[in-house]
């Protein structure tokens, strides 16, 4: 779509305040949406800080893989645990949540062509999050918080560490609140008509889960802060339960945000169709209802809870959330297939997939994120989250193997992919190093899969996670690990280095585009300048009407049916293999 000058739909005529605000809007030449400059600025700063945290996290990651790879064994023990703390906090919390704040601003203002009601509050929230992030990182750097991401009491960090976490959470809570307010005001001011767009609906799901999560965070970290000051007692088991209400639910915000981005990128890259609004929205709703209970699966082999509690919380509730993920795992590729078929790629079962824009990092990143999250992350997650199977998985390398495919191969990759569209659409810059950008999602996806599968195999052999020395050189009893573990350590190291290089390439592209990228001119859009993804050059139709849509619905999505069929078989095989493995262990109960 080229630059357009069509008339704006009149927003709530007569309200002079709104007119004054709307006159400040920029109109996006690609999507024709109105952009509030205040919101755009907040998107930019949150995204930039997210990338800085990503850089800290990936530098730590390189140290970690080079240490777990026993042949190299790079870091000393205290540095290894410090790097592990830094890595977990900067990746899982700071990078992802700062980025999600950008996504919330984007989904509430830009996608709805709405104004941001309280920009000053947005800056206050950003300030709180920055101070929190800096306090936490400073404490960890100084060696005053070698407690790892989980910080289970009675292991104690400096009180300022807990204070930093609290300030960060309060900031994020304010942004979530503003997101709800923006949607309500946009509806009142008739910025958009009809229902909420599905992408914004997905972001709304993420924001609701964020509130549930952050409230858990307040419940757990305020007493922990007081405990660290010596003002009160804290029960380690109660902490573990409440902590995971925060710790795991944070990852559920990611899942909802990631799925929303899948829908967004499917629309931007190939004109993906929402097969059925009802089904997709119900699936998001299931996340809100049930996904928070899934946190309980961290306590499956804990002494504090009974079997009924464990079975109920992790299974019934959780599997309805699993159902939701399985639905999105169908509707997103089905929407892509339908979108491609409507654009004329109708040959055979997989013609649409062959003809898909694999050189567009927005599309390849989205698709790889979907496949890695589903096939590797989802299948392993549901399996190790089963009450009894958890006995052979708890705190082994299988756990990081699992979440590096969900949070890293899934969420982080989706964030990378959407960045290739945010740079031209929000920052209005041509993406630099475009050839590198085309291969970056592939390199990252392949690296992370090699690394995570190695970790999962190490875990199946019983290798513990978060462990500095797999040679056990200084342990009181002589001990030798299985020789295969050395092979997996090496493949884990190689995969990790590939993925880390891909992250560094991403950071290079993002930072140099933001600061040194060429500004997009209207001619760039016409001439198809390099550094602009194909969806930006020619935005595919977002809504299809007429008889060909009915025809497409009738022909269905046969290719996707085959793909989800393969997925289902893999899932069932992996799941029951694990029961078999479990049944061979010592009897315990």
């Amino acid at each position, binding site marked *: 779509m080229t630059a357009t000058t069509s008339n704006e739909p009149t927003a709530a005529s007569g309200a002079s305040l709104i007119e004054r605000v709307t006159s400040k809007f920029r109109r996006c030449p690609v999507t024709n949406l109105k952009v509030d400059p205040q919101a755009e600025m907040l998107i930019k700063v949150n995204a930039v800080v997210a990338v800085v945290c990503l850089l800290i996290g990936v530098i730590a990651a390189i140290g970690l893989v080079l240490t777990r790879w026993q042949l190299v064994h790079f870091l000393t023990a205290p540095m290894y645990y410090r790097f592990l703390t830094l890595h977990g906090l900067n990746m899982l919390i700071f990078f992802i949540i700062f980025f999600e704040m950008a996504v919330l601003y984007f989904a509430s203002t830009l996608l709805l062509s709405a104004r941001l009601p309280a920009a000053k509050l947005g800056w206050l929230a950003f300030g709180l999050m920055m101070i929190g992030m800096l306090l936490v990182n400073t404490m960890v750097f100084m060696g005053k918080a070698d407690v790892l991401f989980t910080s289970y009491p009675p292991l104690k960090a400096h009180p300022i560490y807990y204070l930093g976490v609290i300030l960060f959470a309060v900031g994020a809570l304010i942004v979530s609140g503003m997101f709800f307010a923006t949607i309500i005001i946009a509806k009142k001011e008739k910025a958009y008509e009809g229902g909420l767009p599905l992408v914004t609906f997905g972001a709304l799901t993420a924001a609701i889960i964020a509130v549930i999560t952050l409230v858990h965070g307040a419940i757990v970290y305020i007493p922990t802060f007081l405990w660290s000051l010596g003002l009160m007692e804290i029960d380690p088991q109660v902490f573990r339960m409440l902590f995971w209400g925060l710790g795991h639910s944070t990852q559920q915000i990611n899942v909802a945000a990631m799925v929303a981005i899948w829908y967004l990128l499917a629309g931007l890259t190939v004109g993906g169709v929402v097969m059925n*609004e009802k089904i997709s929205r119900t699936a998001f709703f299931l996340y809100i209802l049930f996904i928070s209970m899934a946190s309980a699966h961290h306590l499956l082999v804990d002494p504090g809870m009974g079997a009924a509690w464990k079975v109920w919380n992790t299974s019934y509730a959780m599997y309805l959330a699993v159902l939701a993920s399985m639905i999105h795992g*169908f509707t997103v590729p089905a929407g892509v297939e339908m979108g491609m078929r409507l654009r004329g790629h109708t040959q055979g079962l997989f013609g649409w997939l062959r003809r898909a824009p694999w050189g567009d990092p927005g599309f390849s990143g989205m698709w790889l994120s979907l496949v890695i999250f589903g096939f590797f992350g989802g299948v392993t997650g549901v399996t190790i989250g089963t009450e009894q199977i958890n006995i052979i998985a708890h*705190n082994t390398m299988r756990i990081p193997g699992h979440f590096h495919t969900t949070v890293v191969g899934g969420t982080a990759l989706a964030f990378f992919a959407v960045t290739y569209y945010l740079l031209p659409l929000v920052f209005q810059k041509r993406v630099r190093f475009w050839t590198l950008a085309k291969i970056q999602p592939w390199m990252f996806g392949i690296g992370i899969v090699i690394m995570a599968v190695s970790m999962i195999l190490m875990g199946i052999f019983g290798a513990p996670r978060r462990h500095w020395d797999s040679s056990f050189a200084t342990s009181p009893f002589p001990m030798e690990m299985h020789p295969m573990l050395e092979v997996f350590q090496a493949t884990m190291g190689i995969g990790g280095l590939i993925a880390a290089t891909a992250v560094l390439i991403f950071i290079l592209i993002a930072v140099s585009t933001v600061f040194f990228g060429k500004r997009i001119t209207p001619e760039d859009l016409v001439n198809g300048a390099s550094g602009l993804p194909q969806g930006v050059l020619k935005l595919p139709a977002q809504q299809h009407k007429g008889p060909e849509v009915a025809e497409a619905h009738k022909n269905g999505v046969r290719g996707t049916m085959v793909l989800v069929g393969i997925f289902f078989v893999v899932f069932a095989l992996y799941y029951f293999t694990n029961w078999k493995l479990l049944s061979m262990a010592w009897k315990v109960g």
Partner: protein
Amino acid sequence: MVAPTGNWWLPASLQEKKWVTLSFVWCMILFAMMPLWHFRGGQNPSGIRGKTTPAAFRARVDRFIKEYQVGTDHGYPLVAPPPGADIYLQAQMWSWTPVLKLKKNASYTLHLSSVDVNHGFSLYPVNLNFQVVPGYDYGLRITPNIAGEFNIICNEFCGILHHNMVGKVIVEE
């Protein structure tokens, strides 16, 4: 991306319905497996759960060692309790006490607790993993099914020498 207008609450297509139904049935199978394993399977994490204090648990471990000690192993007390006994394992930065000598195919009730921070019980290479939480006594009925020497690795980060925390279990024919 685009806001749906008009009546968008439409019935789903047949393929979508098929997949949702299959997924739902599968989720119910996933759910049913867990209670089923409690009745039919031999590996469950339920155990006997009780509260304790570090001092009380330490005293209980000392009494247990005094009662069944048969020697020492690398400086740790070596304990050989009779089949069916309640056996005690104490986790502490950065050691497991005592070393246990068990009989193959005999059942024991293994009591796990920590006297300081969280620890992780990981039996290598059998790959049984349980969380050890201070203040809680986790009683697990275990039946070793293979003879040999096994190690207990701590798999919950418990401080800077965490990787040194290795214990030992001997299972005899």
